[in-house]
C-alpha cells in the first residue's frame, strides 16, 4: 500500500528523490515528463501547502499565543500547555471521557464487525442482502438525523425504555445519568460497524479454503480454526481497521454534540467537543490550538505503538 513505485517502469535507480540532479545528460526528453508530472499533481501541492501545511504551522504558532478572534497575537510561550496540564479540570475530564469512549467503542465496533463478517462468510444464500442491510446503519450513520434519532431513542420516553418496560424491566434515564450517557454514544458508534464489516468480509474471502479443509482433516475444531487460521491471516486487515477506527474514535464530535451536548455533568464531553467550545464559543483560539496539538501527539503515539507492536502480531502472507 505504501509503495509509490508504479510497478513495471522502475528503470531509474532508486535514490533519495530530492537529491537527484535536476538535469541529467541523457534525460532531456524526460524534462517534459517531469513538467507534466508536476502539472498533474499541482492541485495537490497547492492544496497541501495552503490548506494543510500552512494551517498546521500556523496552528503551532497560535498554540503559543493567547490569540482570540480579532485580537492581537501575544506570545505567551508554553502558558497554554501549562494551563491545560495543571489547572484545567474540564480538559482532564474531556481527555478521560475520550479515552473511555475510544477505548470501548473502537474494540466494540471491531469485534462486532469481525463476528458478523465471520458469520456472514459461513452463509451462502442471501449474503448480499444481509450485507446490504447491516451496512445500512453505517451509510446513514454520519448524518445528523441519526444522532437526533438516537437522542430520542434513548430519551426518557423513547423506544429503548419503552421496550424495557414492555418486557418488565426497569427503565432508566439513560441520557440523564452521568454513569450511562457515555454508553449510549458507545452503542451508537458500535452500531455503525458496517464498513469495518465489509473490509473484514473482503479479507475473509482472501483466505484460501484449502487451509480450513486441511485443518479439518487434522481434526481442528471451528474455534481452533478461528484462532489459528482466521485471526492470524486477517491481522493485516485488523491492523488497518484498528488504526483508522482509533483515529476516528478519538476525533468524534457530532454524537456528543447532538445526543448529549457533553452532559450530564460533562460525562460525555468528548475532546473535540471541548476543543470546539474553547475555539468557537469562547474564541480561545490559542488555547484550542494547543489542545489540538496535544491530541495530535496522543494520536501519533497511539498509531506509532500500534504500528510498532504490529511486527509482533501481524502476519503478512506474501
Amino acid at each position, binding site marked *: 500500500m505504501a509503495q509509490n513505485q508504479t510497478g513495471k517502469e522502475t528503470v531509474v535507480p532508486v535514490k533519495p528523490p530530492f537529491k537527484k540532479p535536476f538535469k541529467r545528460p541523457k534525460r532531456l526528453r524526460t524534462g517534459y515528463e517531469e513538467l507534466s508530472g508536476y502539472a498533474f499533481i499541482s492541485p495537490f501541492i497547492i*492544496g497541501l501547502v495552503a490548506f494543510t501545511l500552512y494551517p498546521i504551522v500556523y496552528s503551532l504558532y497560535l498554540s503559543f499565543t493567547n490569540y482570540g478572534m480579532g485580537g492581537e497575537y501575544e506570545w505567551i510561550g508554553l502558558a497554554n500547555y501549562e494551563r491545560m496540564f495543571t489547572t484545567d479540570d474540564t480538559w482532564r475530564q474531556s481527555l478521560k471521557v475520550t479515552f473511555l469512549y475510544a477505548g470501548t467503542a473502537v474494540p466494540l465496533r471491531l469485534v462486532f464487525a469481525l463476528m458478523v463478517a465471520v458469520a456472514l462468510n459461513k452463509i451462502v444464500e442471501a449474503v448480499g442482502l444481509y450485507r446490504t442491510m447491516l451496512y445500512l446503519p453505517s451509510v446513514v450513520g454520519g448524518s445528523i438525523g441519526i444522532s437526533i434519532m438516537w437522542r430520542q431513542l434513548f430519551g426518557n*420516553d423513547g423506544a429503548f425504555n419503552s421496550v424495557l418496560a414492555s418486557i418488565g424491566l426497569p427503565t432508566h434515564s439513560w441520557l440523564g445519568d452521568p454513569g450511562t450517557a457515555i454508553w449510549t454514544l458507545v452503542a451508537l458508534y458500535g452500531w455503525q460497524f458496517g464498513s469495518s464489516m465489509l473490509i473484514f468480509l473482503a479479507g475473509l474471502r482472501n483466505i484460501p479454503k484449502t487451509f480450513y479443509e486441511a485443518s479439518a482433516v487434522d481434526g481442528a475444531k471451528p474455534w481452533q480454526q478461528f484462532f489459528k487460521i482466521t485471526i492470524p491471516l486477517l491481522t493485516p486487515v485488523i491492523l488497518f481497521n484498528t*488504526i483508522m477506527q482509533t483515529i476516528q474514535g478519538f476525533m468524534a464530535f457530532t454524537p456528543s454534540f447532538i445526543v448529549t451536548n457533553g452532559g450530564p455533568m460533562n460525562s460525555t464531553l468528548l475532546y473535540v467537543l471541548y476543543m470546539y467550545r474553547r475555539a*468557537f464559543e469562547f474564541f480561545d483560539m490559542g488555547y484550542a490550538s494547543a489542545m*489540538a496539538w496535544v491530541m495530535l501527539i496522543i494520536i501519533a503515539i497511539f498509531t506509532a505503538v500500534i504500528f510498532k507492536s504490529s511486527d509482533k502480531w501481524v502476519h503478512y502472507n506474501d
Partner: protein
Amino acid sequence: MDTQRKKRIKKIVQHILMIIFTLIMLYPLAWMVMSSFKQSSDVFVDAHSLIPKVWAFENFSEGWQGFGGITFTTFFKNSFVITVISTIGSVISSTFIAYGFARIKFTGKKMWFVLMMLTLMLPYEMVMIPQYVMFSGFGWIDTYLPLILPTFFGVPFFIFLIMQFIRTIPTELDQAAKIDGCNTFSIFFRIIVPLVVPAMMTAAIFSFYWRWDDFMGPLIYLVTPEKYPVSLALKLFSDPSAVTNWGAMFAMTTVSILPVFLIFFIFQRYIVDGISTSGLKS
C-alpha cells in the same frame, strides 16, 4: 441422509439468527421512519411499537415549513449546491492527481506521495482552527467558499482510491498510445479517464455522502439561516428545548437522510466494492 438433514436444520437456524440480528440492527432506523408517520401526541406513547395509530402524513408538510419562515426547500437547495459543486471539484481534481502519481515519473514523487498518505491520516480537526482564522481573515465567513474551495485541490482518500484503480490498467495501453503520438495529457483524457469512470463514480458517491452529512463545516462557517444546509437546519429544528411537534421533527430527520438512502440503493454495488477493494474509511 441424516447428516443431510442436520445440515439443513443448521442452515435454517443460521438464517433465523441472522434475520433476528439484522432486524434488531435495523430497528432504530425503522423506528425513526415510522415515528415520522405518527401523530406528535403518539410518538412517545408505547414508543417501541412501530405501527402508527393514525397515519399522520401532515407531519411532512408541517415539518417542511421549517422555522423562521425558511422552508426546507431552501435548506435542500443549499445542501445540493454545496454537495454537487464540491463533489465535482473533488472528483475531477483527484483524478488528475491520481494519474500524476500513478503513471508519470518525476523527481520528488515519492516525497509528495508520502505527504499525501500522511494527510490521509490527519484528522480535519487538526486544521480546523487555523483554517477558520485564515478564512475569516479572507472575509469568507458566512459564504460557501470554505466548504467548497478546498475540495478542488484533491481529496487524499479519492486520490488513493483512483490511483489503485489506475494501477490495474495495463501500462501497455499507455505505451501504445505514446507510440501513436499521444502526450501525457492526451493519454490521460483518451485512455485513462474513460477507463477509471467506475472509480470516479465511487469517489463521487462517497463525496456526496460526506458533503451531505457534513455538519461541523457549516456549523463553524455559516451564520445566516437562509444559507444553512439540511444538516445544520435540522439541528436547529430539533433542538430539545424548542421542539413540540415531534412528528414533524421525525419527518424531517427521515427526509434528511433520504438522499443518502436513495444513492445507496441505486449505487450499492459501487459502494460495497469500493470499500472492500480499497479497504478504507467509513
